[in-house]
């Protein structure tokens, strides 16, 4: 497929996943506030930190009040990672590849975008924020489902999945990182009911609460960390995501698993192998924040490698053919 098209399919998929994760961050914070006693505002700053755009936010908004943060993360068209911006960019990318994706995928993405845009203009979504963010999440699920059910599982589809899984791995790590940071800051709360609620919130952010309970039962920080990083079966766990991303990468390149021809195959293979053989103790000893930070850097490097290998502009090099026989 065309490099430009692969690039667009890749970013379409990443932006849809990103929009969903922003909605998850915000939604779960709302949930928390409903049974929280610790004062509302301290809950909102970490959300901005999660997105990685806190400098921009502090400059333009100042105080991290609920309203400011939600506006910034949801409807702010100048914030490149707001839900509105993500869906707009996902749709712009989809628009350039409409002949590659199925009509149903386009229809769904266009509809989601128009709905969020209408909500941004109407500004009455605060009446039922939960409903709104649930809709954003569901729109993404619907898109993914439609992608799986209506698009041939061909090269373009694998680029979709590769992008989605890398984005999701990155966002799960950020979710974990920020919450861990808050918990450390309030050491008094460790082991308290509030601590449990916080960790429950982390799990809910990743739709992981129920699946976690089935597997680990009691809520414990170690259990949550292990589940969200190392689980091989839960679809938002980092290991699961990166293994799926690796499978798609190899399906695209045709390189046998366990070997590599291109840089991103090497980087992602090493990352998956690290995750397979690391233990929870080693992660904790290294420091969770340091570990996650390192992981995010490596996932970024995989993304950069994918760009270099598959999307980057290359000028043709004329292969000189042997001179034709004269007198033809």
């Amino acid at each position: 497929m065309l490099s430009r098209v692969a690039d667009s399919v890749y970013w379409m998929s990443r932006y849809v996943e990103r929009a969903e994760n922003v909605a998850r961050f915000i939604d779960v914070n709302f949930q928390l506030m409903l049974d929280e006693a610790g004062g509302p505002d301290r809950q909102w700053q970490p959300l901005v930190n999660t997105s990685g755009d806190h400098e921009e936010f502090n400059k333009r908004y100042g105080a991290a009040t609920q309203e400011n943060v939600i506006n910034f993360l949801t409807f702010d068209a100048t914030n490149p990672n707001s839900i509105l911006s993500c869906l707009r960019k996902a749709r712009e990318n989809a628009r350039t590849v409409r002949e590659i994706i199925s009509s149903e995928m386009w229809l769904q993405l266009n509809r989601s975008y128009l709905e969020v845009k209408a909500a941004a203009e109407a500004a009455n979504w605060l009446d039922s924020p939960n409903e709104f963010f649930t809709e954003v999440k569901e729109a993404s699920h619907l898109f993914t489902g439609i992608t799986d059910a209506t698009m041939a599982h061909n090269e373009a589809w694998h680029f979709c999945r590769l992008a989605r899984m890398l984005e999701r791995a990155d966002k799960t790590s950020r979710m974990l990182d920020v919450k861990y940071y808050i918990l450390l800051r309030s050491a008094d709360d460790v082991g308290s009911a509030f601590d449990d609620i916080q960790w429950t919130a982390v799990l809910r952010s990743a739709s992981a609460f129920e699946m976690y309970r089935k597997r680990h039962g009691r809520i414990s920080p170690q259990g949550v960390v292990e589940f969200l990083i190392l689980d091989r079966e839960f679809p938002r766990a980092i290991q699961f995501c990166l293994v799926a991303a690796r499978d798609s990468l190899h399906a695209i390149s045709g390189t046998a698993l366990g070997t590599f021809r291109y840089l991103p195959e090497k980087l992602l293979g090493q990352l998956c192998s690290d995750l397979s053989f690391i233990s929870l103790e080693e992660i904790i000893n290294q420091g969770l924040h340091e570990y996650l930070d390192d992981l995010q850097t490596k996932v970024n490097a995989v993304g950069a490698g994918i760009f270099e290998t598959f999307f980057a502009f290359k000028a043709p090099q004329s292969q000189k053919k042997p001179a034709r026989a004269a007198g033809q």
Partner: protein
Amino acid sequence: MRFHQYEVGNFFDEMFSAEGCPRPAAQALVKTIESLPDGELLARQQAAERALLQMGITFNVYGEDAGVEKIFPFDILPRIVSGCEWNRIETGLKQRIRALNLFIDDIYHQQRILKDGILPKDLIFSAKSYREQCAGLNPPSGIWCHITGTDLVRNSDGEVYVLEDNLRCPSGVSYVLENRQIMKTLFPRLFASSRIRPVSNYPLKLRDMLESLAPEHIKKPRVVLLSPGIYNSAYFEHSFLAQQMGIELVEGRDLAVQDEQVVMRTTKGFERVDVIYRRLDDDFMDPECFRADSVLGVAGLMQVYKAGNVALANAPGTGIADDKVVYAYVPKMIKYYLGEDIILPNVPTYICSEENDLSYVLENLEKLVVKAANESGGYGMLVGPHATRQQCDEFADRIKAAPRNYIAQPTLALSRVPTLTGDHFEGRHVDLRPYILYGKELFVLPGGLTRVALKKGSLVVNSSQGGGSKDTWVLADGAPSESVATQRLEAVLPVV
């Protein structure tokens, strides 16, 4: 909803021969609509508009930061053409395209028509759309204009005239296909019983035609559609057609020339391209051959084309036949190349570079429509009856300064079709653009794009100036003109 207050006025009405008198081909439709409860038709129209927006069938409004996209307004009442009338139109279009193609081929080779004095030499060499780079080109099978979108209008005398030929990159066919899709969901029973000739096979025909242009030794040719990109106002159509044909949509930056082949950049390296359906004007196609400042095209493309290693549709250079002065000579061309009389007449045209015509035009500006020879899309035009004295004077000066660049035509009273305006129907002026494919054979898509001037009294059907579109129903030969079963079933169908 009833037609009893509908006024035909002093125009040719496509649906009614007189007040309360639907034409035979329209009777089933009129009955169906009259049997709908109040408000139902409006509800269906709104459902159609919502569907268009959600499908993203929009055109871009340039220069808007918020990404303003508008749907091309759609009117729910179709324009109906009877089978026998269509047969005549189809024959006339085929005749015209055949002659125009012979003309283009002649102009870039021996120029017999100039030597025989049928067309003045100066006319060709002074045309902005004449491309000297195309002289001597030999497109596959000698076909230059593979895709044409001829504009037809009907005057109050009931005759169908050819208004423009559009042999370069005619657009709009995607609306034909989408409008039909929507109408089928809105009036399924009527379609089931009316024997309306289908249009949905257009993308199949188009792809077959394009594949037939590939160099002969290539077994499975790779066809691509070359678009200027997402900011082009017809981008939706480009991606729609590529999708429906199952071919790649490429931009200039995706293509390159390597070893006398056109190749495209893929995730697996460079791959050869055999046929390019280009939706880019000649000028932008190849900076080495045409405009050097173009970044939309592919450097070296024309060299590959001349070597016969890639096919282009349409061939470069076809614009010469779009010149509005050349248009005036089409009846003579048909006589010259085919030895036939023209079937679909031209609109009478005054050529300002001819002395007698010029003085007539200057004396009668307020009655005439004046057009610049090299413009399209409603630019560089004066509609005499709607112009001020000052505008007429300005145009007179321009004509006198460069008579070669202008033609004039009488103002036509375009035919009308009933159009939904709030809670009732009013007549609105329409034109018709059928699409013709020319490969191994000539194919005319039955129907085409009916554009409608939605503003009351307006004669301008362009989308930028309040124009919309309607579905065009061409009935099969001998189709039943009405069906009683239809109307009963249609009335109870839910809104989609």
